[in-house]
């Protein structure tokens, strides 16, 4: 691990009474980097985040921020700020009071509070909402304020626990963009937890794909997408066709790397099963001897195919996995 990491997790283990949890986690996050912990529910991603925030106690291992050990600090003493999935704001306080709460605790002078809150509201495009109560705002607006409130305290590391998952799709992608912009503008270090792989791909500098309490793969989004280290990652990130090979291994091909032509004589032959219009492209599934294969074709190209037509598939860039799930090359 590099010595100048903003956040460093060393050999962290945190177990619940049930025996679930995370074991031997190692991760270093650079200043200004946005790292996403991605995985299905119950994989331990929120556990790691809450342990960094101080809401769960590590059984062993260390958490360092700017080189300082914070493993045993109370949440209120940590230089972290957390945004939860929902109910972040204190319902009995106005937006202004919500934002001033932490500043007051830090004994920031009144005039300074006012100036900083105004600036922050401007940045998160919520000026004029000072006197509103959380109950009077939409979910998206509340999360904006929650993020703004955390940023106001200039935390060393910002922790986000699926902050957009309760919002509808359109607002979610809008919030994503804004968060990314603010994060790069302010050069803040962020650990983001999500189960939404699309969100992870869109936001992250690096993604940590998690499975059952441990890391499956850590890397930039392109690398995770183009070179999934295991069948699990290949399956979890994006769409993937898994084609069993005669030698017992499994060939994984992304739908965009499969091309189709009428007739027979491809790497794989079959019959058109479904043709689905998905906006500017068509998703086609083909019934083959090796199962159903998904692929994308353009709208014009799709016109020549009908359900039940015999087609030949050519498989492009692919990966191979053994049954034990590790990459076979």
């Amino acid at each position, binding site marked *: 691990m590099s010595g100048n990491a903003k956040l460093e997790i060393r050999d962290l283990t945190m177990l619940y009474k049930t025996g679930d949890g995370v074991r031997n986690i190692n991760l270093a996050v650079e200043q200004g980097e946005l790292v996403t912990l991605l995985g299905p529910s119950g994989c331990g991603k929120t556990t790691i985040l809450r342990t960094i925030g*101080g809401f769960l106690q590590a059984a062993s291992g260390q958490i360092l921020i700017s080189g300082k050990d914070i493993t045993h600090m*109370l*949440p*209120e003493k940590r230089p972290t700020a957390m945004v939860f999935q929902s*109910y972040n704001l204190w*319902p009995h306080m106005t937006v202004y009071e919500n934002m001033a709460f932490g500043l007051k605790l830090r004994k920031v002078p009144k005039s300074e509070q006012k100036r900083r809150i105004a600036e922050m509201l401007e940045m998160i495009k919520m000026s004029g909402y000072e006197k509103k109560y959380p109950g009077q705002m*939409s979910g998206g607006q509340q999360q904006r304020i929650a993020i703004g409130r955390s940023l106001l*305290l200039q935390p060393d590391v910002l922790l986000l626990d699926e902050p957009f998952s309760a919002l509808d799709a359109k607002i979610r992608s809008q919030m994503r963009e804004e968060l990314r912009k603010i994060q790069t503008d302010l050069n803040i270090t962020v650990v983001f937890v999500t189960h939404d792989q699309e969100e992870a791909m869109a936001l992250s500098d690096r993604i940590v794909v998690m499975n059952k309490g441990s890391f499956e793969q850590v890397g930039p989004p392109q690398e995770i997408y183009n070179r999934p280290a295991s069948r699990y990652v290949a399956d979890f990130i994006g769409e993937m066709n898994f084609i069993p090979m005669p030698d017992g291994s499994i060939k994984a091909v992304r739908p965009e790397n499969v091309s189709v032509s009428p007739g027979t004589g491809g790497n794989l032959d079959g019959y058109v099963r479904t043709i689905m219009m998905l906006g500017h492209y068509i998703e086609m599934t083909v019934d083959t001897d090796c199962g159903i294969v998904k692929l994308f074709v353009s709208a014009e190209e799709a016109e020549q195919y009908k359900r039940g037509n015999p087609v030949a598939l050519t498989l492009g860039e692919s990966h191979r996995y053994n049954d034990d799930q590790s990459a076979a090359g």
Partner: protein
Amino acid sequence: MIKKTWKTNVLIACMLLPALILALGIILVPMINVFIQSFQDGSGNFSLEQYYFLFTDKLALQNLWYTVWITVVTVAGAITISYLLALYLRFSDSKISKVISTVYLLPRFVPHLVAIYAMMTVVRDSGFLNRLSQVFGYNFKPGLLYNAKGIIMMNLWFNIAFATMIIVAALAGIPDSIIESSRDVGAGRIYTFFKMVLPLSIKDVLVAMTFIFMSNISSFTTPYIIGPNHPKMFGVYLRDQFSKMRYERAAAVSVLIFAFSSISAIVYLYTNLKEKEWEKTGL
């Protein structure tokens, strides 16, 4: 929704009528009667002598203050203990807290008389505690019966379960993330309690307080069985006057009890009807 015409209004009135008549007949009419009676002397003439007596007679005044005092101590004690208990049940997930959360409501299921007599066999000066102490060579006399201590102890026994139930529900309605985000921005446990937990649960605490106040200001069974001969709580005093056939004075005592209950009913209505700005939701 059915459109309201005069016909549906008549229908609604007709359907409500039996209940209305019943309520008028058994509550409102006697209330008015008692109220009128309390302003009469023994021979039916208008007079303030009953109230004059209650507010000047030394024994009557002692009864009045005794009643208010016991009720206030009961309310304060029950709410304090219940709040602490509810906090423990809400924020601890230990085994003890799980056990308590399943059994704390049991007193609600024990009939008053049974509970009082059961308690008497334990705390009486020759009761279980006394016998137990004799085994170890002591002669411990709790001295809890026939005085205010006994009444208050019994009141607490009945009311803590009720108040805890209400406060537990209020605290359960505060999401963890609200408390955690307060800790997260730098507030300690105590500060978080006063800035988050207390303001978000105070309304239910007031509701519990008014209920306990109302049921205890007029309590009869407990002070009748384990209370002293003097001073008496108003419930017992009322019965005394009644059995001595001083109906006008009994009526005046009833009106006073009712007046105290009304104050707390007003507090209840005020806290429930008055929506704070933040409780109004919607855009």
